[in-house]
């Protein structure tokens, strides 16, 4: 487990062509660009379908089942309809910002998938700093959201966008710290090598890290219970209140593409990515992505929304210290006992996680509620 691997010290060299790839450099790029766009669109449709059906069943209903077989074409119908709706720009809006916002929000989400391995080496660019790249790129979408909030000229939008920025800035820290735990164990920043190194899924080796990462990821992409920026019951539709037609479709797409991206990253980092018996690797990857996404749907169905100050309190007072402790413990384990079987760490880490959560719950306070006015 060499932390100071040469990969980190070397200049940022890209391993663009996996060894078993038949074509040349450009074919690789072209193929994966098309594949990623198709993958994202299809996965988003699948995700929307899964969410609406799953949520329907959890609410003792059925969910869409009349459009196409089993309602499978429902997302298609929605997409076609939304794209052809009239496009409205409010008169009070800042026109340019209003126009640019969906694009700025959408591009980074698509770009995240460049480093996600669909199977061994099958990715657009096997960056040796892949995970860093993900962290860097994924927060750019916030700029788009804030532009939307500002450019709409609507107070609801602005409130939603401000909430989102605050949440993303705070949750970036525990999220990165949770990732560092994984990086220390695997000894690499490359997504592909993290997967190849996962003989035991890291969800077992890093249970606390997984929990922190999952919560932080939910907050970053505004899934419930942290969906404050849309907050249906408070801010009508949050930052995209004033968007209609195609631009709204892009925000809708971003919402689910982000969820899929985060699910894919969680599947890669903690659920051993494409690895699995019997089935082809890419199928394993998709299944794991959907399983993670399903958990997000599940929490969304069950949990009420937290308040903005509680959201902040959770990040800084609960997740941040726990992530630091987790990082510290992992580092000690890796440095002091580099050669011990990881199964021992599994048991130890689960115990540590349980004790930490119990302890921290005792002195953790979610912050004050009322302010004197």
């Amino acid at each position, binding site marked *: 487990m060499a932390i100071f691997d040469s990969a980190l010290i070397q200049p940022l060299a890209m391993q663009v062509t996996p060894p078993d790839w038949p074509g040349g450099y450009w074919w690789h790029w072209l193929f994966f660009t098309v594949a990623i766009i198709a993958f994202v669109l299809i996965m988003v449709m699948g995700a929307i379908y899964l969410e609406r059906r*799953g949520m*329907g*069943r*959890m*609410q*003792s*209903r*059925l969910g869409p089942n009349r459009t196409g077989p089993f309602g499978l074409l429902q997302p298609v119908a929605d997409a076609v309809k939304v794209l052809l709706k009239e496009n409205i720009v409010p008169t009070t809006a800042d026109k340019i910002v209003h126009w640019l916002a969906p694009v700025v929000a959408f591009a980074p989400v698509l770009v995240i998938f460049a480093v996600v391995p669909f199977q061994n080496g099958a990715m657009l660019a096997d960056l040796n700093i892949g995970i860093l790249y993900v962290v860097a790129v994924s927060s750019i979408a916030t700029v788009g959201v804030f532009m939307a909030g500002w450019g709409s000229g609507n107070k609801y939008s602005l409130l939603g966008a401000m909430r989102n920025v605050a949440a993303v800035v705070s949750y970036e820290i525990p999220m990165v710290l949770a990732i560092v735990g994984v990086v220390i164990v695997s000894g690499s920043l490359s997504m592909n090598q993290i997967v190849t190194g996962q003989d035991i899924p890291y969800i077992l080796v890093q249970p606390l890290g997984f929990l922190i990462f999952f919560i932080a990821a939910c907050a970053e992409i505004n899934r419930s219970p942290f969906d404050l920026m849309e907050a249906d019951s408070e801010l009508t539709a949050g930052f995209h209140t004033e968007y209609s037609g195609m631009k709204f479709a892009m925000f809708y797409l971003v919402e689910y593409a982000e969820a899929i991206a985060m699910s894919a990253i969680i599947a890669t980092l903690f659920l051993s990515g494409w690895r699995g018996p019997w089935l082809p690797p890419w199928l394993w990857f998709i299944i794991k992505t959907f399983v993670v996404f399903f958990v997000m749907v*599940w*929490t969304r*169905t*069950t*949990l009420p929304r937290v308040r903005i100050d*509680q959201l902040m309190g959770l990040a800084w007072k*609960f997740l941040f210290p726990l992530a630091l402790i987790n990082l510290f413990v992992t580092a000690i384990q890796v440095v002091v006992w580099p050669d011990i079987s990881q199964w021992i760490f599994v048991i130890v880490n689960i115990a540590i996680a349980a004790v930490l*959560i*119990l302890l921290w*719950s*005792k002195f*953790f*306070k*979610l*912050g004050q*509620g009322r302010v004197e006015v």
Partner: protein
Amino acid sequence: MKFERYGIGIIKGMAVTIKHLLRHPTVTQFPDQRLNISRRSRGNELIWSREKCTGCATCAKTCPQGAIEIVTSTNMAENKYEVETYRVDTGYCIQCGLCVEACPYDALFMGYSYERAKYRRAELVQSNDELLESPSRPASGYFHPEIAETLPKQTLLVEKIVEKRKKK
């Protein structure tokens, strides 16, 4: 505010939702599966019997808003009223059933059917022969127990056991 129970409440709640995922949903898929509605259902129309009606206009007087318009003329030969126009604006009627309750000659019935949406406002005004009972306009058993007996038993959601019952 302490984070008191270490997430046990959250886990309990999530167990409830996942249990619902595995249960059969409560849904009746309306156009294909139909519920038997109540025998006393006050459907979205009024049914009028020309034979029984004597043109006393009790219904029009009882109607809390005057949705019933009735025009009569005297038939001196048979010594009774002839109903010339009997008009109900279904879009104005609120189906309170007071007219049916008040009719002294059992000449009014609430309708049993509810699929009465229209594209045009004017189509909602029904008069004379449009108000008579026909196979497409069955009468309901509201204030007419003899009709209620002939109608199918109401589907009750209580009787559809969706959830597994606990042992007592």
